[in-house]
């Protein structure tokens, strides 16, 4: 049942796997640098007086969303397979979340 | 078994039907006997939607009865195995599309009515002529109603007086730091909540609506319409009634003039005694007796009694006579549990009750 016999020669398999894991770890570090970068940009954008609010808010929100996608797909491995159900339920949650936030920003009071 | 079932069903349907045919409720309080433009609009929607629903129910019931009768398992059929039908696309499309069409028929008037009923921009219009379109500020308190006519500087309570055949606009709010209520005059139009966030001092967060009172049908309905609180607000929610008198524009103007110009005064000795008691016992600290209550909305902690003698009910629902007034003053808790007057004043003896009653019943603004 368990998928712990995916190769006939465990040694070869092991080397291959280690390599793959190391590669993925490299990606993770790149991801991390991107996230730090995005964060710094967001903080600078807010601190900088030259740009208007109409631009800042959607801009930093976009940065946040990109960063979260990084977290989800790389750090939380959603890009790997076997995450179909996870993704379905996470995005359903996001759907309800967006509706809620939208409603509270528009029709709580006018 | 089955026969008995249908018989029972018919019977209960029949009892229900006779009850319905017995009437559409009372004209002063039933949504089925609308007496104004708003209620008319809502009534029409109710009729339209009911018709659609009757069609739906009829279709379902016909199929249902046919199936249940036709396909019951008879003797000797125990081992029959019916054809295992998987589905039928044509049928499934039909019963998806037809409901959609029915709903479209319903949504169009629903949307248009929603926006029509939401037309309150005129309230903020600086050029609004109060002699054609008045505004009433409604404040819902535990468990009484206050109506302020900002155009005229008049405040009254428990009884709403409005001119017929013209748009009347309402601002709605609850007393600050109290609880939410809902303002409803069933035969004139639907309800709207009086939220605690509504603030007359700043003009923020007020709910707004309009109503129209039809003169002819108001006459037929009787002396007044019933108004109700339609949001659970505590023990006496059930008793938080108010009355609505819809009068012609002339009468209304006259009433306003009376309210603006007359200071009710105690005439008889007993009444003057009552007036004095009214001060000594501290009633005056809450109740206003002049129609022009200058205190800010938040300070008006009790119904204005300026025209108490002309009211048709006491505390919104008790008969307007000396006896029930005395009962009320003796023990308001017994009649309106949880009200805000209980225990705020010293006990009154019979003599004091007589005097207060005489005084209060004499508080009138109209000259005749």
């Amino acid at each position, binding site marked *: *049942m368990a998928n712990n016999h995916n190769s006939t020669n465990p040694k070869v398999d092991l080397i291959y796997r280690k390599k793959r894991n190391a590669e993925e770890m490299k990606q993770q570090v790149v991801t991390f640098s991107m996230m*730090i970068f995005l*964060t710094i940009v*967001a903080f600078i954008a807010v601190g900088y007086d030259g740009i208007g609010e109409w631009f800042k808010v959607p801009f930093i929100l976009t940065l946040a969303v990109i960063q979260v996608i990084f977290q989800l797909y790389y750090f*939380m491995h959603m890009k790997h397979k076997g995450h179909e159900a996870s993704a379905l339920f996470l995005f359903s949650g996001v759907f309800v*979340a967006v509706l*809620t936030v939208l409603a*509270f*920003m528009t029709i709580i009071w006018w | 078994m089955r026969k008995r079932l249908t018989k029972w069903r018919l019977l209960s349907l029949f009892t229900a039907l006779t009850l319905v045919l017995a009437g559409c409720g009372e004209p002063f309080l039933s949504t089925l006997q609308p007496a104004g433009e708003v209620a008319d609009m809502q009534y029409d929607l109710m009729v339209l939607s009911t018709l659609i629903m009757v069609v739906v129910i009829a279709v379902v019931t016909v199929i249902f009865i046919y199936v249940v009768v036709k396909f019951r398992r008879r003797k000797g059929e125990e081992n029959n195995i019916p054809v295992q039908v998987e589905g039928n696309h044509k049928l499934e499309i039909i019963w998806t599309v037809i409901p959609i069409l029915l709903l479209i028929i319903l949504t169009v008037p629903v949307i248009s009515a929603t926006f029509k009923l939401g037309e309150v921009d005129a309230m903020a219009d600086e050029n609004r002529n109060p002699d054609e379109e008045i505004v009433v500020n409604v404040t819902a308190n535990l468990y009484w109603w206050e109506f302020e006519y900002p155009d005229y500087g008049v405040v009254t309570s428990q009884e709403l007086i409005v001119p017929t055949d013209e748009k009347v606009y309402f601002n709605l709010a609850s007393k600050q730091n109290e609880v939410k209520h809902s303002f409803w005059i069933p035969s004139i139009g639907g309800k709207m909540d009086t939220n605690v966030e509504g603030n007359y001092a700043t003009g923020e967060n007020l709910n707004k609506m309009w109503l129209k009172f039809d003169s002819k049908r108001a006459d037929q309905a009787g002396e007044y319409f019933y108004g109700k609180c339609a949001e659970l607000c505590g023990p006496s929610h059930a008793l938080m009634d108010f009355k609505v008198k819809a009068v012609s524009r002339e009468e209304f103007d006259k009433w306003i003039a009376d309210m603006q110009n007359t200071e009710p005064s105690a005439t008889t000795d007993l009444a003057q005694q009552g007036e004095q008691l009214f001060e000594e016992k501290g009633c005056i600290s809450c109740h206003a007796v002049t129609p022009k209550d200058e205190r800010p909305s938040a300070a008006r902690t009790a119904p204005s009694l300026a025209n108490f003698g002309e009211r048709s009910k006491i505390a919104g629902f008790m008969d307007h006579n000396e006896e029930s007034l005395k009962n009320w003053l003796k023990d308001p808790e017994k009649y309106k549990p949880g009200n805000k007057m209980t225990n705020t004043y010293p006990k009154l003896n019979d003599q004091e009750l007589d005097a207060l009653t005489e005084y209060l019943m004499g508080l009138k603004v109209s000259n005749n």
Partner: protein
Amino acid sequence: MAHVEEKLTAENFPASPEKATLEGKNKFLGFWLFLGGETVLFASLFATFLALKDSAAGGPTTQEIFDLPLVFAATMLLLTSSLTSVYAMYHMKNFNFAKMQLWLIITVLLGLAFLILEIYEFTHYVHEYHFTITGSALGSSFYTLVGTHGLHVTFGLCWIVTLIVRNARRGLSLYNAPKYYTASLYWHFIDVVWVFIFTVVYLMGMVG
């Protein structure tokens, strides 16, 4: 379910240890679903904050009190701790228990630092500006949102510490690998929430 009695080695250790057993699979999925629910929970708190962000009731507003450098430092701490927990999972997949524990300890330390900053920040607001949870609707919604996140951090720390301590002697197995894995998922999720907190609460709060 094959009842694995054979000794685990780097060779026979499965590629996805968190999903190698049925229990593991269930935990893995159940935890993701839980995160779906948490999303709605935090959304409700965010929504409440957004609805009340201008309700200072005469008290201090967010523009007046927020201290961006502090928030920036906190953000860096938490983001980095997310990376360190990725390292831990990396070593888990390579069946390197000691390194995994080490990276988790680093994660915990970073998380702890974040928490201390947050507590300092709160006391600072209260003492410096009299910005309290009872003073205004803004205060209530701010402290509740950020505080709920803080509680999650605290819970996450306790969880990871328990795992580290408890398994220190037993080593990695297919029984506890899913537990480590879900704990790290939880930690990332806390980070995800924080990304929105620093953006929506702090940065947008500065913008106005």
